[in-house]
């Protein structure tokens, strides 16, 4: 939650005893163990993404330094390989650790991209209304009319895009509409509120009203959705890579690993299950975090 929002909300609060929405939500969250589980998982995943060297050695993921030996192909989990080896004889655990960065980066960049584009357009459309609003809302229904993974399949199979940025571009282009709808609705709501009228009466310009008064009050739900969609985008990247349209080898992500493991799955399930496990836990962590925060921010669900 942004400082702006906290500030805006504390400005509204009356009396020293009352709590802001953010403080109230935090009070709820602190006692929710699901929230803490997701936080711990996300801290762990972030550590893996930022410092993979702490958890595994890069040498084990490539044959260039003698890490992968063909004689170890599909070696079962045991002393030599904690979670087994893949077809090339590479350590599946180390590969999964080093694949985390691509998978999470794609999810994170896409979540940031869709939130920025969707929120900005939603803010403008909701604030100014009129023709630009009708046009943008019409465009939104078109984007919502195309299931985003199918759209990405069409784009990535017919246009030659650089792989990581290509996937981010495709997913962002096709899924900013949700954030647009949320922020637009909230902006229209906030535009009629007394604090916006007060700011205008004090002579504030449009830009100041939009970014200082409306946006902090309108962006909350779209940030929550961004956290949940971060998880969903990581899954979407895996689906695209599994279909051979996403990340291309030698770059690696969990989706690429799963795609390469499918033929060996029945004889050596660990080759597929290990990256799939990392993937599922990561997606789950972001969805849980988003949902617990969203529940905490919703006064109707308070007990």
């Amino acid at each position, binding site marked *: 939650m942004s400082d702006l929002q906290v500030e805006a909300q504390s400005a509204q609060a009356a009396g020293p005893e009352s709590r802001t929405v953010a403080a109230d939500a935090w009070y709820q969250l602190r006692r929710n163990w699901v929230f803490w589980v997701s936080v711990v998982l996300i801290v762990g995943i972030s550590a893996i993404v930022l410092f993979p060297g702490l958890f595994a050695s890069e040498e084990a993921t490539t044959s260039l330094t003698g890490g992968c030996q063909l004689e170890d192909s599909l070696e079962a989990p045991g002393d030599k390989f904690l979670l087994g080896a893949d077809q090339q004889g590479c350590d599946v655990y180390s590969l999964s650790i080093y694949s985390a960065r691509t998978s999470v980066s794609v999810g994170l960049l896409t979540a940031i991209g869709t939130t920025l584009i969707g929120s900005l357009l939603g803010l403008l459309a909701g604030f100014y209304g009129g023709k630009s609003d009708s046009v943008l809302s*019409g*465009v939104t*229904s*078109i*984007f919502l*009319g*195309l*299931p*985003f*993974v*199918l*759209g990405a*399949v*069409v*784009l990535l*199979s*017919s*246009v*030659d*895009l650089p792989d990581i940025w290509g996937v981010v571009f495709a997913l962002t282009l096709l899924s900013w509409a949700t954030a647009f709808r949320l922020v637009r609705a909230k902006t229209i709501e906030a535009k009629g509120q007394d604090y916006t009228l007060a700011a205008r009466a004090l002579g504030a310009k449009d830009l100041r009203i939009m970014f200082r008064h409306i946006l902090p009050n309108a962006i909350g739900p779209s940030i929550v959705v961004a956290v949940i969609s971060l*998880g969903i985008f990581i*899954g979407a990247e*895996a*689906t695209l890579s*599994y*279909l*051979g*349209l996403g990340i291309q080898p030698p770059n690696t992500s969990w989706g690429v690993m*799963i795609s390469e493991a*499918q033929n060996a*799955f*029945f004889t050596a*399930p660990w080759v*597929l*299950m290990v990256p*799939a496990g990392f*993937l*599922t*836990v990561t*997606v*789950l962590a972001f*969805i*849980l975090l988003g949902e617990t925060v969203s529940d905490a921010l919703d006064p109707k669900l308070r007990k």
Partner: protein
Amino acid sequence: MGRFVVRRLLQIIPIFFGVTFLVYFLVSALGSPLDTLSPQQKRNPAYLEYLTEQFNLNDPFIVQYFKYIGNVFTGDLGTTFAGESVTEIVITRMPVTATLAGTALVIELVLGIVIGVVAARRRGKLFDNASLVIALIFIAIPVFVLAFVLQWLFGIKLGWVVPTGISEGWPLSYIVPAFVLAAGSLAYVIRITRQSLLETLNTDFIRTARAKGLPAGTILRRYGLRNSLIPVVVFLGLDIGALMTGAVVTEGIFNVPGIGQQLFTSIKQQEAVVIVGIVTLFVIIFQLLNLLVDVISAALDPRIRYE
């Protein structure tokens, strides 16, 4: 109700043109389908000519689009390099996909609503918590991982079904792929039913019904469920897109010869013409099913009709 349907049909028209334009924009405005060809395909003049002709690549973009949309209206979704009509392929494969999707829908609705209702009635108990945890795992696990795991478990380890193909017919060959396809949505149906029923059971009219002395079962069926299922129907509309994506992966892995499997194979073989044709068809089906869902929710809830 009639006016509502007409209004909704009229709204579909611009969206239909918009979405097909978007699909075509993705194909040829940002680059050219010739860019993604494999080296062998690039050296094959017949293939280049075929693609240029199929996508009208020599025309300006907007002309390409109108030629494409004209073909879609006349039922022509393109021709494969081998000379088969995509429309015909789709028509032959449609019944298989419809059977699979129908089975999946029944699984997600029946299981989802039953589990959701039981969870709501035993709020906070073991069943409730267990079903919520399992639902979350189904939401987080990618379709293709669940597909491989269940294919291995039921097809190989336990040997209850043949792991791939539809040689055993319905239901034996369809049940596992349909469950895989339904799993993610099933999880949402459980959660939405539970949440919505809990909210409904907290309202004044339920309290009144209780005060009148109606039996608990009647209250649940006649008052509770009826008012709780609207969000489930709305969710189904939103979820059709995810089901279509899921069908591609599920049919591909279980080798179910439907439209999804055709798309799966075409993606692997980089057959852009077939991919665009099938995705266009999916978009049309998506719009029509959404219309159907809107009509159903309007029938369930008069407030939607008069909005």
